């Protein structure tokens, strides 16, 4: 089947010339050392490294526009780089080209407290933003495990443990400035953010993985820090009962802020890495946000649901230190898992299914893991029907690599068959391109047409998504 976006006019690309012109313009800010290029072409993916030809550190949107203009003229690939925490080879440079490192564009530009929004440069990380907001009574809720950049998070439509209450990047980006493939910068929405006339360019760019434009500024929603936060832990005899408790909680309309599942293998990993001392049973971490009385009421109600579903030991606390320890451990789940087999790489899956199918999907996946004898801890954003397995494999063993690939394929097919998706939050990058057609069919060709309309020479992050 023809796929316009991947038929790159590679013959016409002149990467060397583009780099030479950019070197004159950027001097020392353009780097071509091997290690710096490899750092920017690989990051946390288990896919093989494909470094760019040069890395440029941009200081402002004019730099980005200048780089893209030069690259457009010479059909040179351009790849934006946030902090490099993406997991599907999003940053690989299969056709070489220029990587724009956005880390120097790290200014918080304007807190609009009245409007519960903030304008930031794309290199600001989620933790840096929340540190900046410390004294305002406001916070930014999207929290992928890594301390990712806001630009990277928008580009991957990221979510995190708070998504069940606060949504994902698609719900929290109000408007964007972005440099398009011809080097021109656009603003996707006016200051009146509640409505916009015309097509939703903001949401088209959110999740486009750097293939439609390079984000140079974001306005994102903020939320008031809740008066009270209560959090806790509980155990379940099996994953099925934990899923049942989740469904009941949501159906009762309890506005739970976080509800995260760890399977036994992950509990063992996190106990060792984060010194938690949890019982070795399927475990749920939860959190409630609201007024003092509301969080107390919600915690009690949730406790009843846990008991009804056969769970045990639900204890909740408002103590900040205890809560922080718990959530830091949740965010460190990936590192904890890798610690179980330090020499191995982690192949991470990202299935998302309707919650009524979550227990089935997890159970079948569990059996698959056992049948393959994998070491593969599992964590789930159960409130959204999304879960990850981290299959720890020896990259020097072709047998293990092949088995992990096949496992990951079966899991994607399983999720798609259950009415779900192969990627709930990590995105397509290079790693999931193969499954996209299984999931979307001809729709992929149609998306490729949009790509071609926006970027006819396929210079923006080529080889991704399609």
């Amino acid at each position, binding site marked *: 089947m023809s796929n316009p976006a991947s038929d790159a006019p590679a013959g016409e690309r002149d990467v060397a010339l583009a780099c030479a012109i950019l070197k004159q313009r950027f001097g020392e800010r353009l780097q071509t050392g091997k290690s710096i290029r490899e750092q920017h072409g690989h990051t946390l993916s288990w896919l093989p490294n494909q470094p760019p030809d040069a890395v440029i550190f941009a200081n402002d949107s004019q730099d980005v526009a200048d780089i893209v203009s030069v690259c457009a003229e010479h059909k040179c690939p351009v790849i934006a780089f946030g902090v490099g925490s993406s997991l599907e080879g999003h940053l690989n440079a299969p056709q070489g080209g220029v990587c724009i490192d956005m880390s120097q564009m790290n200014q918080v530009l304007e807190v*609009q407290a*009245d*409007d*519960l929004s903030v304008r930031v440069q794309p290199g600001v990380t989620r933790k840096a933003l929340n540190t900046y907001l410390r004294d305002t009574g406001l916070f930014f809720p999207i929290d992928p495990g890594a301390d990712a950049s806001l630009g990277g998070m928008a580009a991957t*439509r990221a979510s995190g443990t708070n*998504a069940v209450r606060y949504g994902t990047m*698609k*719900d929290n980006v109000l408007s964007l400035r972005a440099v*398009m493939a011809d080097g021109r910068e*656009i*603003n*996707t929405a*006016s*200051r*009146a*953010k*509640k*409505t916009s*006339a*015309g*097509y*939703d*360019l903001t*949401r*088209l760019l959110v999740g*486009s993985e750097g293939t439609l434009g390079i984000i140079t500024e974001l306005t994102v929603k903020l939320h*008031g820090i809740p*008066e009270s936060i209560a959090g806790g832990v509980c155990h379940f005899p099996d994953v099925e009962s934990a899923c049942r408790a989740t469904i009941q909680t*949501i*159906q009762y*309309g309890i506005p739970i802020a976080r509800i995260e599942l760890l399977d036994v293998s992950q509990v063992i990993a996190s106990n060792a890495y984060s010194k938690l001392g949890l019982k070795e049973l399927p475990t749920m971490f939860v959190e409630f946000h609201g007024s003092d*009385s509301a969080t107390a009421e919600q915690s009690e109600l949730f406790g009843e649901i846990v008991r009804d579903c056969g769970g045990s030991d639900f204890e909740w606390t408002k103590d900040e230190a205890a809560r922080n320890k718990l959530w830091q451990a949740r965010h460190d789940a990936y590192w904890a898992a890798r610690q179980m087999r330090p020499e191995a790489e982690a192949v991470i899956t990202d299935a*998302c299914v*309707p*919650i*009524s199918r979550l227990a089935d999907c997890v159970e079948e996946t569990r059996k698959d893991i056992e049948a393959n004898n994998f070491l593969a801890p599992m964590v789930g*954003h159960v*409130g*959204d*029907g*999304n879960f990850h397995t981290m299959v720890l494999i020896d990259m020097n063993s072709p047998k293990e690599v092949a088995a992990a690939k096949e496992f990951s394929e079966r899991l994607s097919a399983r999720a798609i068959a259950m*009415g*779900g*998706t*192969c*990627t*709930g*939050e990590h995105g*397509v990058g290079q790693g999931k391109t193969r499954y*996209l057609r299984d*999931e*979307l069919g001809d*729709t992929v060709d*149609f*998306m490729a047409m*949009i*790509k071609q*309309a*926006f970027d006819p020479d396929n210079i923006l992050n080529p080889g991704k*998504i399609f």
Partner: protein
Amino acid sequence: MVAGASSNDASELLQQQVLDSIARSRPLNIVGGNSKAFLGAVADGDALQTSNHRGVISYEPTELVITARAGTPLSEIEKLLAEHRQSLPFEPPRHSPDATIGGAVASALSGPARPFAGAVRDYVLGCRVINGQGQQLSFGGQVMKNVAGYDVTRLMTGARGTLGVLLDVSIKVLPVPEQQITLESTIELPAALATMQKMKGSNYPVTAACYHEGKLSFRFAGSEAGLAAAIADLGGDKTRDTSFWDELRDQQLAFFNTDQLWRLAVPSGTPALDIAGEWLYDWAGEQRWLKTTASADSIRETVARHGGYAQLYRAPESLQASAGVEHPLPDKIMQLHSSIKQSFDPHSIFNPGRLFPGL
């Protein structure tokens, strides 16, 4: 799965009509319940009726997701949801009893809850469409999170039918609050705007805020006991009657009885604007309805100065033609619109000019 009252799959028929139109190069006006015929310029073309393509395809109350054919009346969907104490959180206006879910998504209009609960775009999870090549395509899905490729679902939302025919939509729904209370007080405009602004940033569970005819109204979700602090803070009369909000949502208040109406969207914190006329302030002041004889240019100029924009929501045809419905877009943005339109609808079959002239 809960089946709808009357159910009919007309997608093959609709697809055939689209293919015929492409073959004959005849534009199509996509019509649901035709409750928003006034919105945007309607071009010369054949009508494509979606109202026979109707019925709820699936509804899982435990999943908080409903999937329905585009021609399903909003009233039917809301009735079904209400039986399970759930609702469409964005409160789409029902300009007439015939309004369909497809029309609500295509026009992306949201009701009084908008600034607090979110917009249509925040709840649409997936859709199936017929594009301008006559192909049926599906985007998104029924799960809460999906990052498999471009977010085309949200591009379709609010495109006013210019990109394709919506066949089915999947929408996230939410439980209805157990109790709702409205507080009303008589107050001057500047104080009302300031109070609405303050309440929006408060910890209180506000679900709507409107200023109309000297009266400031707030709607809250929660019990009287739970709202004691808000009630003490704001004062005013309390009522459980929600009819004011329904009338506001559906434009049934006397104020809306007019054939010339402007809708202004302004940034939060915008003061009263210096345009003579009658005003109604919804969305905590961010959406303003205006009846005026002032010229379109002067209105658009004033609103733009405050970072907002003005839409000619209802107007006699002559004014609609001379003033245009929407604020014109910057050139580069318009170019991107054209390339999107070209990808979806290369033969310019769907609703030409309904959103912007020439699109």
